[in-house]
């Protein structure tokens, strides 16, 4: 990371000539046999080559595409120069869980979707570079010292340990607040450990992020259900502020006949049994059904995770049943691609109307209808409508319902003063504060099922707001300092501008004087008396 500084810098033309590097991955035939990670990550060579593709735009549009505004060209430049350490420091400054986001963010609709190079050809592989740098930081933790601020004497409770809660806890700990995370499950990580499977996000990565928080002094209390073990009211008495990040953990079912049959799972239950409870290991105590023909209803990341999990659990046929078309599949593009490679079958523009079963109430199939796009509705969107007479039966022995989640009322119902909207999500102001003073919220419990990065952004924003709430004086002082700095900068800019103007005026004056002088010389050199 030192001598590489001598690397020659490439011209834009040379940069444009480099083709996008793809991340090595395990072959589809072998990877469906187990739960090891599909993507293998860039090597140093690939990473540097990919980083050299970045044009270092003056107005980097990629940053606009990032919900937490990671300074993308800055860390990529450091990678191109061979300074991974610097890149890691830069990245971790902006993003608390880059190992996670590098793996699960929908880059194609965010940073990479906005990358200038995508206008003509392939965008820079920002996600793969983020993952490369983040994984380096993870394996070189000793070189990444933690900065912990002196204790502020304030105590903050964080409810829920998904990406929103973990991010907020990290930020708050950095400012010296004593943070306790309360988590209902027996392990921290939220969807990152119970939902997203091992083959996409290895659990030891999440675990090391959690360990890092512990090293920062964050206390994690598992087996603590707020609304049951403690009430929100009690937390408000015990802590100076509370951050609610309980996610959107209530499964939605299709509401069709037969959903009580044995062999019908919500995606939450199926993935929790397999991931969190380890049912993918043969010796696990937690049972799970091993369907041979598994139908997964839905088209998002959750559906892709469930269907690819079913393949790995031995299903000879794993089928996605989705009511819209291929282009509308809301999952990350890479997940759809990986599912296709792994032999997942797609029944598109199909909607189930009933789950069929036998005498012992085991699932035997799905009754379905085909869908087509109807007339545009008020919003201009064409909704799928049933094709008359298109009914058919899709035989299967297991069904996983992955059509979304809603807010879990366990906590919100226990506190009637907590304002919720018509879907049960918490209402917050611009700073992330709920209707209860000192109680903040973020992530899926505010947005509805969204993304890891948005949840993290909320966690960061709320941590800032909580810091202000806890110490308005310091916040005011910081504001004043910032304002003074801004004023100073403005003044300096003004002075510079004035100086430039004065300079320009002087220059103009000098030029005029010179011109006049020249003219005078000219006149003087002319012969006396009127001419012509």
């Amino acid at each position, binding site marked *: 990371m030192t001598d590489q500084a001598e690397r020659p810098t490439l011209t834009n033309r040379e940069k444009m000539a480099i083709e996008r590097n793809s991340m090595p991955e395990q072959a589809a035939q072998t990877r469906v046999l187990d739960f090891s990670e599909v993507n293998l990550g860039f090597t140093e060579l690939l990473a540097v080559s990919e980083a050299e593709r970045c044009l270092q735009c003056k107005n980097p549009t990629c940053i606009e595409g990032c919900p937490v505004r990671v300074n993308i060209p800055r860390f990529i430049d450091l990678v191109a120069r061979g300074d991974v350490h610097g890149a890691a420091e830069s990245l971790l400054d902006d993003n608390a869980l880059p190992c996670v986001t590098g793996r699960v963010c929908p880059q194609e609709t965010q940073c990479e979707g906005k990358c200038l190079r995508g206008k003509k050809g392939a965008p820079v592989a920002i996600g793969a570079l983020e993952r490369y740098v983040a994984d380096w930081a993870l394996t070189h933790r000793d070189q990444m010292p933690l900065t912990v601020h002196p204790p502020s004497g304030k105590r903050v409770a964080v409810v829920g340990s998904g990406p929103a809660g973990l991010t907020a806890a990290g930020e708050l700990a950095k400012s010296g607040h004593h943070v306790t995370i309360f988590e209902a499950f027996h392990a921290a990580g939220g969807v990152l450990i119970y939902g997203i499977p091992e083959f996409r996000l290895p659990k030891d990565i999440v675990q090391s992020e959690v360990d890092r928080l512990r090293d920062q002094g964050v206390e994690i209390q598992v087996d603590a259900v707020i609304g049951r073990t403690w009430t929100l009211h009690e937390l408000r008495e015990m802590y100076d502020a509370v951050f609610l990040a309980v996610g959107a*953990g209530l499964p939605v*079912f299709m509401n069709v006949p037969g959903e009580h049959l044995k062999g019908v799972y919500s995606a*939450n239950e199926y993935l*929790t049994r397999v991931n969190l409870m380890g049912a993918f290991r043969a*010796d696990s*105590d937690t049972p799970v059904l091993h369907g041979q023909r598994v139908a997964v209803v839905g088209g998002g990341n959750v559906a892709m995770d469930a269907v690819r999990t079913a393949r790995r659990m031995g299903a000879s046929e794993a089928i996605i049943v989705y009511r819209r078309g291929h282009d509308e599949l809301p999952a990350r593009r890479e997940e759809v691609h990986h599912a296709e490679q792994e032999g997942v079958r797609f029944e598109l523009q199909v909607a189930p109307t009933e789950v069929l079963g036998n005498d*012992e*109430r085991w699932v035997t199939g799905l009754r379905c209808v085909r869908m087509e796009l109807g007339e545009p509705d008020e919003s201009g969107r064409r909704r799928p409508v049933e094709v008359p007479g298109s009914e058919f039966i899709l035989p299967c022995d297991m069904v996983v319902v992955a059509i979304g989640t809603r807010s*879990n*009322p366990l906590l919100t119902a226990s506190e009637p003063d907590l304002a919720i909207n018509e879907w049960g999500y918490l209402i917050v102001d611009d700073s992330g504060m709920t209707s209860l003073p000192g109680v903040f919220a973020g992530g899926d419990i505010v947005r509805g099922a969204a993304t890891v990065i948005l949840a993290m952004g909320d966690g960061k924003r709320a941590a800032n707001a909580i810091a202000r709430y806890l110490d308005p004086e310091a916040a005011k002082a910081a504001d004043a300092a910032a304002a003074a700095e801004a004023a100073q900068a403005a003044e300096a800019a003004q002075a510079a501008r004035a100086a430039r103007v004065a300079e320009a005026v002087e220059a103009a004056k000098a030029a005029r004087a010179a011109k006049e002088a020249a003219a005078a010389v000219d006149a003087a050199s002319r012969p006396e008396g009127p001419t012509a």
Partner: protein
Amino acid sequence: MYPVLAATALSPNVTRLVVEAPRIAQVRQPGQFVIVRRGPDAERIPLTIADADAEAGTITLVIQAVGKSTMDLVEVAPGDSIADVVGPLGSPTELLTTGHAVCVGGGVGTAVVHPIAQGLAALGVPVTSVIGGRSREWVIFEEELRRYGPVLVCTDDGSYGRHGFVTDALRDLLDEGGVDHVYAVGPVPMMKAVSALTLPYKVPTLVSLNAIMVDGTGMCGGCRVSIGGVSKYACVDGPEFDAHQVDFGLLADRLTTYRDFEQAAVARRTACLLPALAEAAAR
């Protein structure tokens, strides 16, 4: 970590564990349960809080060892710990404050009705308990329940108390009149029979449903039961429901989901233990 302070055998395969869990002991209410995970790779299993001592900071769990996970759990010796005990979960029992209540317990379900009888008695409600088991050795919690009112014991084989089912004793009480509320917990066929019995008498009846659970907080939907044709989650909406609305057939069917898996797990466990047992026997 939740230390086990005492373990007592109540019946051939029923064990009472006293576990240190101060917060749960302090706030639990009748009808609530905990989810227990013995160790790192163990299953999460729901268990009713049979009793609690807020001052001592302990809760009492009564466990029937029927599968691998419960067999492992009852083997935790006093002094050792259970990795996770989360709770109290579920909605507390709606206790009536007037009239005469009958608490019906079958087998290990008797431990589940115990806190209800306890709660009713604390409110000054007269309680009669009807408890039963296959034979004398399967009758549990008789002593404890006597503290709150008369206890009628039935055994299927007549080895103790009345020869017959709990429904026989309950029918007599209903015929006598003056029963305002029935709480019944036990095997599904027993609860179903109690429900069918009280329906013509129009006596409100609550049952506690032992659905299969994972999280116990409403996030998986695995515990769904059908109440009056509407899907409910036993872990948050229950575990107690109006017996006359419960689809017992569905509950019984769903409870068999992992039967094959469980039999295999028990067989594996026994196979693992056999050499050790044989060795012990040889010595």
